[in-house]
Each structure stands twice: as structure tokens, then as C-alpha cells.
């Protein structure tokens, strides 16, 4: 495994973005950082800027107001980058999928690598999603 790849898979840096969700998934994402689940022990750190991040963790259905911002954040991330869609809203927009101000799931706007279902998914499920992503990165 090359040094860069080793660095990325050993310690993925994350940036989190909410595209109009109810906050439930965001609370569970932040709970994953807290002492009880503590994803930092896996080398995962949350960064403040997309330019420093390997992984974009997105929650919420994409509202019209936020769509451009989501695309911009994705474009600012350096290659190679990955996206994890956390929660039912991020996957399909449900239960807001037919609301007038909602586009749909995240993958209607940017490509997604890992989907973590749940409403909201528990922190364990979110960590599992990140681990799956790391395995995917290691594999190819």
C-alpha cells in the first residue's frame, strides 16, 4: 500500500455538512465524537474546511436553498474524496422526499460512496459506515 493511501485509510479527515435535516443525524454524528464512542481513536478527526478533508459526511435532505452550497463544498475537497450519506433523508429524502422545497437524496446532487440508513442511525452504525468506507478505500 502506498504511503498516501496508508495515510488516508489510517486517518481519514472528515468534514460534516447538514443540507436541511432535522438535526437528529447530526446529533448522532457528534455523539460519535464524544467520549462514549470516540471515533478519534480510529484516527478520524473532524476538520473545519473542505480543503483539509478526505471524507464528506452529509446529513439531511437537500433543500433548494442549500443545493449550490453542497456542490461547492464537494468541489472544494481535494481528490481523492469520498462521501458518506448518513440517515434516511440523505439517502432518499424520505420523509420529505415529496416536499416542495426538497430535491431528494444526496446522490441527486453529488456522488455517494457509503449509505448509512436509519432515522437517525445510531453512532455505532455511523462508525460502521466509516469503517466500510475505509475498507473500500483500502481495496481500491
Amino acid at each position, binding site marked *: 500500500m502506498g504511503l498516501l493511501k496508508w495515510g488516508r485509510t489510517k486517518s481519514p479527515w472528515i468534514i460534516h455538512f447538514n443540507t436541511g435535516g432535522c438535526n437528529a443525524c447530526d446529533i448522532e454524528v457528534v455523539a460519535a465524537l464524544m467520549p462514549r464512542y470516540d471515533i478519534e481513536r480510529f484516527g478520524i478527526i473532524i476538520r473545519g474546511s473542505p480543503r483539509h478533508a478526505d471524507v464528506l459526511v452529509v446529513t439531511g435532505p437537500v*433543500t*433548494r*436553498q442549500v*443545493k449550490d452550497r453542497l456542490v461547492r463544498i464537494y468541489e472544494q475537497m481535494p481528490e481523492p474524496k469520498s462521501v458518506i450519506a448518513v440517515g434516511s433523508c440523505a439517502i432518499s429524502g424520505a420523509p420529505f422526499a*415529496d*416536499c*416542495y*422545497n426538497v430535491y431528494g437524496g444526496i446522490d441527486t446532487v453529488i456522488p455517494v460512496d457509503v449509505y448509512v440508513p436509519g432515522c437517525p442511525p445510531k453512532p455505532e452504525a455511523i462508525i460502521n459506515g466509516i469503517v466500510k468506507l475505509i475498507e473500500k478505500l483500502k481495496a481500491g
Partner: protein
Amino acid sequence: MTEETTEENEIVRKMKHLIGKNVLESEVTRPRRIFILVNKKVFGKAIRYLTKRMDFSHVSTITGVDVGEEIEVIYHLNRAGTTELSLKVRVAKDKLVLPTITDIIPGATLYEREVHDILGVIFEGHPDLSPVILPEGWPSDVYPLRKEWTIKKIQKKVTKGGKR
């Protein structure tokens, strides 16, 4: 009416005394809940009376409802945290204007803006009716809470005609 609702009935009685047959409908649905529909031409008088003389100084929110030819605007007023009086006034769609109440109760500012966004009611005298919840680029003739705009119709129009 039971003894419990006497205070509410008293309020209704005072309103009727103030504006007479311009109280078009009134109902005390339960303790601490009053609904009154007034004629638009006495709206200013009614709201001033309730907020300044009857101590309904808290605006919980303002609701707009599309009832066909008209928009019904409901002012949910509260007195001392307890009794909630919903003052309703109907405005014809072809002349969708009401005076602002932000000169009496500044806290109503965002509620009026919201009703303006989603139903198109113009609150005359409001300092700033710019969009508050609808996104930029939203087409100006699409009022989402109007019955003629179904969700499917909105989505078609906004994806095609709007900037998004």
C-alpha cells in the same frame, strides 16, 4: 356554557360590544381557547383593542389559510401566557392587503413575512417584506400554501422556471 369558560365568554362579549355585528363568528372551544372572526374593515380597531386594552400583548404566531376566494389570516394572541385568542380576518385574493401590526407589536415581524412568502398577503407598513423562508430564485408568483399550487405543480415550475 360552564362556569369555567366565563372569562372567555366575557372577552367575546366585550368584542361584540366594541364592534357589534362585525364579529362574524365566535366560539369558545374550551377553557383558554377563543376563536373570533371579524370583518376586515374593523380589523385595526379589534387588534388594537385586544393588544392594548385587553392585555393580549404576546403574538404566538400568525397563520394564513387559503379558503377559496379569500385568504384567512389568523392572529394567535396570548394573554399572560394563558388564554389564546385566535383573531381571524378574511381578505379577498384580488385585494390581498392588511395593515401591519408591527407598529403595535414589533415581535410580529417575522410572522407577517412568513405569511407573505407562502400566501402572498401584503402587510402594509411592514418595514421589510423580503423573503424569509423561501429560497432565493423562487418564482414570485408561486405561493406554496395556496390550494391551486399542488406540490407536483410547484416542483415542476420551480425546477423549470426558477433559478434553481
